[in-house]
């Protein structure tokens, strides 16, 4: 052990509360002018206890912390259903133009024609790509887009004077789907998949009755498969007076190849951060615009842009052609993400977007073909879309779990694949390479997975159960974190006493 607890570039970085001081500041602010206070009796009397760091200390603190993170710019992130693709820095540059970053959501509309133009242009691209009629940009994330789409469906049903209480959700759905349906007060009716991993139109027809408001279906689905009976499923719902909610999480597999609107989708959120490369930022912010079919186009949250470019901010400004159901967020949504997404779309164009889908699907199938002899592909008979699903059958009898396998991948310099999702197979490993990986990078990943699969079968158990050995931390005790939650920093007792 070293004196500093640091090991060369492996640096032990204390919490800012352990090194910061109340008198430290990293910003030079002028002396405030003397004025007569208007704070009244609520002027702050006690200290807040917010330690500061100087600018050089701040730079080191955060740069050192950053070095304990894996990131797409460091290596491959084969996270199925999460779509970790290259994040072009042009997008960042464009989003920081003062004309986009330094405008206020409530400054006069007459002073922001360029912002409205950008939102209109983004809406147009989304409508053309999805084959849909209208788009509500404001949802703050994919899950809120789901909420918006389902609220549009609820509003449309209410406008017909009907009450429907049930939403169909296949068991392979994202957890947000049932959570969204439940949040809106719907009963969730689960639909089983066939043995080939897809949903049959018969199973859907069996589940439909007059209480069904909608189905929430991800396509391509979370097993990485395109639902072949999608159009028939949509038709069955429409015939029953219900709607088709498409989860757009996997839209990146089909852009430029087929359009959800043509398949019968009524509402679908688009995760701009996934398909259109806005960075994940360690877990957000995302952006989840929702596109709507002709049937649902009148039902959207405010604000929305009319086709003529006017901004509808409130329900009472409408002509009666639109029936907005409310507001999902203050202001206009994730403008900063709109700029990044449009920058990505314009850079690619219709040709580049189609190529991105094709390359993503090609890469997933290349991995599938290259690993199918050493790992178990869950649904080998069908072409994978942009992601390929493996399960833990190949680990049977080794004593090694999917989690162990994933942690061993960390030691090899890769971020693990998505684990234990979807829930329909045992020990799922969902691999999504995206279009951003070169052939060399795909080959290195494949060679690593092959080596690990062989090691598992050869009984090299410690390589897995002891992993990760080469990471900023060994395996963390998540049970302890949940049993006795420590969610904020509190100074150790002796220090606290000394401070008094």
């Amino acid at each position, binding site marked *: 052990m070293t004196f500093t607890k640091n090991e060369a570039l492996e640096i032990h970085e204390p919490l800012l509360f352990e090194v910061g001081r109340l008198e430290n500041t990293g910003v030079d602010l002028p002396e405030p002018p003397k004025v007569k206070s208007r704070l009244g009796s609520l002027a702050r009397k006690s200290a807040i206890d917010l330690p500061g760091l100087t600018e050089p200390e701040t730079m080191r603190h955060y740069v050192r912390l950053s070095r304990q993170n894996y990131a797409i710019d460091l290596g491959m992130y084969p996270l199925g259903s999460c779509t970790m693709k290259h994040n072009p820095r042009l997008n960042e540059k464009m989003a920081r133009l003062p004309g986009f970053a330094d405008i206020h959501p409530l400054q006069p509309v007459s002073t922001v*024609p360029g912002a409205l133009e950008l939102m209109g242009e983004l809406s147009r691209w989304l409508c053309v790509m999805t084959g849909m009629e209208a788009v509500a940009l404001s949802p703050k994330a994919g899950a809120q887009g789901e909420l918006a789409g389902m609220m549009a469906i609820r509003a449309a049903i209410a406008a017909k004077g009907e009450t429907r209480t049930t939403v169909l959700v296949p068991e392979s759905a994202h957890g947000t789907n049932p959570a969204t349906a439940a949040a809106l007060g719907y009963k969730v009716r689960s639909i089983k998949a066939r043995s080939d991993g897809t949903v049959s139109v018969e199973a859907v027809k069996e589940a439909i009755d007059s209480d069904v408001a909608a189905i929430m279906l991800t396509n391509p689905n979370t097993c990485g498969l395109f639902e072949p009976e999608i159009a028939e499923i949509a038709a069955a719902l429409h015939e029953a007076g219900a709607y088709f909610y498409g989860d757009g999480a996997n839209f990146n597999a089909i852009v430029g190849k087929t359009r959800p609107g043509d398949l019968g989708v009524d509402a679908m959120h688009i995760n701009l951060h996934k398909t259109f490369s806005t960075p994940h930022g360690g877990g957000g912010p995302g952006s989840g615009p929702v596109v709507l079919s002709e049937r649902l186009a009148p039902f959207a949250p405010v604000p929305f842009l009319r086709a003529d470019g006017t901004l509808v901010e409130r329900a009472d400004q409408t002509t009666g052609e639109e029936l907005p159901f409310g507001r999902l967020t203050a202001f206009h949504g994730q403008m900063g993400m709109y700029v990044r997404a449009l920058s990505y779309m314009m850079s690619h164009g219709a040709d580049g977007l189609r190529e991105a889908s094709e390359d993503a699907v090609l890469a997933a199938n290349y991995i599938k073909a290259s690993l199918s002899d050493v790992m178990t592909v869950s649904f080998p008979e069908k072409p994978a879309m942009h992601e390929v699903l493996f399960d833990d059958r190949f680990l049977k009898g080794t004593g090694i779990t999917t989690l162990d396998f994933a942690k061993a991948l960390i030691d090899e310099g890769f971020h693990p694949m998505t684990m234990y999702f979807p829930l329909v197979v045992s020990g799922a490993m969902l691999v999504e390479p995206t279009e951003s990986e070169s052939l060399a990078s795909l080959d290195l990943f494949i060679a690593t997975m092959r080596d690990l699969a062989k090691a598992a079968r050869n009984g090299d158990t410690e390589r897995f159960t002891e992993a990760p050995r080469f990471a900023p931390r060994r395996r963390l005790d998540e049970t302890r974190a949940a049993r006795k939650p420590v969610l904020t920093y509190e100074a150790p007792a002796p220090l606290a006493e000394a401070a008094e």
Partner: protein
Amino acid sequence: MRYHPLTADDRALMLERIGIESVDDLFADVPAKHWVDGLLPLPTGQSEMAVERALSKMARKNHAAGDGPFFVGAGAYRHHVPASVDHLIQRSEFLTSYTPYQAEISQGTLQVLFEFQTQVARLTGMEVANASMYDGSTAAAEAVMMAARTTRRRKAVLAGGLHPQYRDVIETIATGVDVTALPADPRATEDIVASIDDTVACVVVQTPSFYGHLIDLKPIAEAAHAAGALLVAVFTEPVAFGAIEAPGAMGADIVVGEGQGIGNALNFGGPYVGLFATQKKFVRQMPGRLAGETQDTEGKRGFALTLNTREQHIRRDKATSNICTNSGLCALAFSIHMTLLGEAGLSRLSALNHAAAVKTAEALAAVPGVEVLNDTFFNEFTVQVPGDAAEVIERLAAKGILGGVPVSRLDPDADRDLMVVAATELTTDDDIASLAAALGEI
């Protein structure tokens, strides 16, 4: 396409390995009649130069806040953000990382979130905070739903000083909660105590209010607690707490608000960062992500996402909310800026904001026909102007001055002659003089 590394030879080799002729064979499950024929009717790919040119042209059509005197607030505030904040959040390891589910290789993000939670808890005067929400308005809606879950009651009373769009968001999102919104009265601080009874889950009070008044929460908290209800305190300007009492010190049970004012640009309304803090006893009802401290197998301190059994990916239709993300990068920006400020910097920043607002209020009060309605305020207050405030603001804009927000734009029931005016540390004496002079001419 410069973002796609595969070459034509690579693709041919990959097709051969898979054993197919063409990539279209992989789309065989897509119904043939629904294939896109050729290319979508959209422009084809453009060079970096061309995209920059086109987007810059759009951006230039907007009047940026820095282009002239600027007094727009009402929930989003223009502050100076130190250059190091944007530099640090653009580090690849923060910008391009994923949600920190793999804790061993996400300690950077996790420690930042733990530090952020601590900063937010201290700033709001509460015991715990989550790792951020979409924005202040959605955090407010989640707080109302949490209060309903916690008290097993269905009624929420919204004070008249709540931001009208926050009120709209609560009414839209808080399904199953009966919302009573008290009438907005910009002239007075509110008396909401009378509206609290033992069927109420929570009262929602914004301070500083939408109209800028500073509200003493103590009597409201006492009345709420006596009736078994919770007090949800809302704010839209985090910088205020450098100068005024924290809601937690006045008895709030849940404190939610917009964190944009620290570390984050205006961005035309998003992305922003919702702050959410509460007391320890309510932590298992709190929505959103949480980072917690723990140890690794060698006994080293580390951090991991925790208490996620409340979350949608585990509880599915029994989840506490459908929230599936946080505003990680915006929370990072908030935390870095707060670290740079420290207690000393935040106090000074708050004092600068208040001083600029006091000067602005004094200058406007001196304009004939203009009345400042507030007794107390932090960096924003309400002004009554002769005539329609929206028209006044348009005329100011024509002179290059962005003068405030007409209340009627957000609240159709409001008097049309009211506008909300904000000043910050970026407001100069010249800006104030320009606004007062221009208002005098209108």
